[in-house]
């Protein structure tokens, strides 16, 4: 650098410029895929723990896209696709939203399962067959569980305890939306479960039972954060909340504890779906293959707190690790009823809440 003068500096500058221009096509050739997941802690954990492993294994880089949740994202995707945009190559949808997307059409594309060998690790329930073939590969599952404040109440043994006004007057926090879980809990506790929700009479009977619960509910929450704040603030002492988040809050020292009552907790799951029209079908297939691997399922359980979609024996999760994210019995949401009878269920539910 001793002979550095203005001219050499200029020359090296030009060389540098040339090098960066030359490098551009190389970057364009490297493979990448855009993947959506629910924003916040969830997405951050994916960015920190899962996507780097995927890039290491396949050389495909991941651009993370924030989804607010599953159902709102469907509206966003629908509008974007009509307008000619494509916010992401892979979206994360809950089962009911995925079925809706499939029925609406031109939102999610069929998958080539021969390229997603790992999907055979999953129970066939988690590989969704939609219009024109498989359209979703299970990503992870989560429990909506019974939670309580151990400083205020004893561990409830059954969802039926929530109906006891002596224990829970104006003290519960439950989901405000009709398919958030209370219908399923109530059907499993006092009726024949999912089957009851298949008929209008059954739905009405369950809703009438829930109406009895109203004096005990202090908070009908729509956003996760509402319930989190209310548990922390002591505005509610029990209710329903996500199992993994409740466990994390407990680890942080907050007075909250999840439990599996004898009827069980609600298990819902998310699926990776390929956006219709995306030219990243191969990269997407590689990612879905990667995420179905038992080792990756275990990684997600440890780092994100989701329940694995593969049998526990296939993973190296310890009992403690497994119980942190999963449990039994599991109640399956009455997806079919919620989809095929949604207008009736929503109006009846809203009427019950409004006392109209």
């Amino acid at each position, binding site marked *: 650098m001793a002979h550095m003068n203005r001219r050499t500096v200029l020359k090296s500058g030009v060389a540098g410029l040339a090098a960066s221009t030359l490098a551009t096509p190389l970057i364009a050739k490297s493979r990448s895929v855009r993947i959506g997941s629910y924003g916040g802690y969830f997405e951050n954990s994916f960015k920190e723990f899962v996507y780097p492993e995927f890039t290491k294994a396949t050389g495909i880089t991941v651009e993370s896209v924030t989804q607010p949740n599953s159902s709102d994202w469907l509206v966003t995707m629908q509008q974007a696709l009509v307008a000619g945009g494509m916010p992401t190559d892979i979206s994360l949808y809950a089962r009911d939203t995925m079925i809706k997307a499939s029925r609406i059409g031109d939102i999610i594309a069929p998958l080539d399962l021969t390229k997603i060998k790992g999907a055979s690790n999953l129970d066939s329930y988690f590989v969704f067959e939609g219009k024109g073939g498989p359209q979703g590969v299970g990503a992870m599952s989560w429990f909506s569980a019974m939670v309580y404040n151990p400083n205020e109440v004893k561990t409830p043994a059954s969802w039926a305890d929530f109906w006891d006004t002596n224990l829970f007057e*104006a003290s519960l926090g439950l989901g405000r939306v009709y398919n958030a879980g209370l219908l399923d809990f109530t059907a499993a506790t006092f009726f024949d479960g999912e089957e009851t929700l298949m008929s209008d009479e059954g739905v009405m009977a369950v809703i009438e039972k829930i109406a009895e619960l109203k004096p005990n509910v202090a908070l009908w929450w729509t956003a996760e954060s509402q319930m989190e704040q209310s548990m922390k603030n002591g505005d509610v002492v029990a209710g329903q909340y996500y199992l993994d988040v409740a466990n994390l809050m407990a680890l942080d020292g907050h007075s909250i504890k999840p439990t599996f009552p004898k009827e069980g907790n609600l298990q819902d799951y998310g699926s990776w779906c390929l956006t219709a029209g995306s030219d990243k079908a191969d990269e997407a297939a590689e990612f879905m293959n990667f995420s179905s691997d038992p080792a990756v399922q275990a990684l997600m359980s440890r780092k994100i707190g989701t329940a694995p979609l593969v049998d526990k024996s296939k993973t190296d999760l310890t009992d403690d690790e497994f119980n942190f994210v999963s449990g039994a019995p599991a109640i399956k949401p009455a997806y079919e009823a919620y989809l095929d009878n949604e207008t009736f269920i929503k109006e009846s539910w809203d009427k019950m809440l409004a006392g109209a």
Partner: protein
Amino acid sequence: MTVADDIPLAKPARAGKATQPFPIRRVVPGVLTTLIVVFCVAPFLLVLAISFGRKVDGAAWVWDLTFENYQRFFVGVLWPDEITLLYLQQLYYSFYFAVIASLLAVLTALPFTLLLTRLKRSTQAMWLVFILSSLAMSEVFIVMGWDILLSNNSGLPKLFRETGLTAWLKDVGWFQTLRDWGLANPRNVKFKTSDFATVLTMSYLVWPYAVILLYPALSRLDPSLAEAARTMGAGRWTVTRTVTLPSIRLPLLGTTLLLFVFLLGTYVAVTVFAAPEKHTTAVAIYSNVRGANLNAPFGATQAIMLLIAASTCLSLGHLLNRKAEGAR
């Protein structure tokens, strides 16, 4: 359906002679009309068109020309087997909260603004800047703040407990009354969910607007009128009633109506603080358009009905005002 041909579009300005100056007087109204059509009329027509659409259970909605959504708004989806007034009830609560909160905001902002106009010019300016800047806070932020202020472990209920007020209420037996009103659980008082919290937050939300809207009229009030009345022996209350209030009747009514319309669409405060029995049309619209349901047509119908109801109210207010004006 949308009849795009009927939309009055600005006629393209005819190319004049090259020597003529730029016809700004003819172009500006054209541009303004186009802007209004594109940003106001077209979205409104779209909402109107969607409100005649049809929901497909288990999927999304499709374009159609059905009045079922409007029928559902009045009698519910199961009509004629069953009638529900759910959606009219929601509309009622939209008005209920908006009326109470806008009146409360104006009634409290009025004395404040009156006092404000009597301060030094520089002090007035400082207050106005402070109030204007508080408008930068979003509804979400304000609701969050009040949420914490009314929380059991960090807010007003904690104050009740720590000062012994809760224990005292229990001793004298009024606590049971609060429980009956839904303002307490067995452990402590609670203000969420309640009408109190909802109205409080909603008035807080529009209070700066009330001050800013009332300020010009109040600052132009001629103090000599009130002074003259006082020298003739009128009491303070008589002066307020017969001199001050009548001279600001119009801005007072205008402010209340404006805040009322603004509050009809309140979403966050109602979702967080109002009991589900008292949820409003705005909340219902959102839960139909977004969320798990994807029933945009019914959401659009509710929006149109809210708009019609609000316009009717505004027209009535205008009519009353004209009548009062004529009676004088």
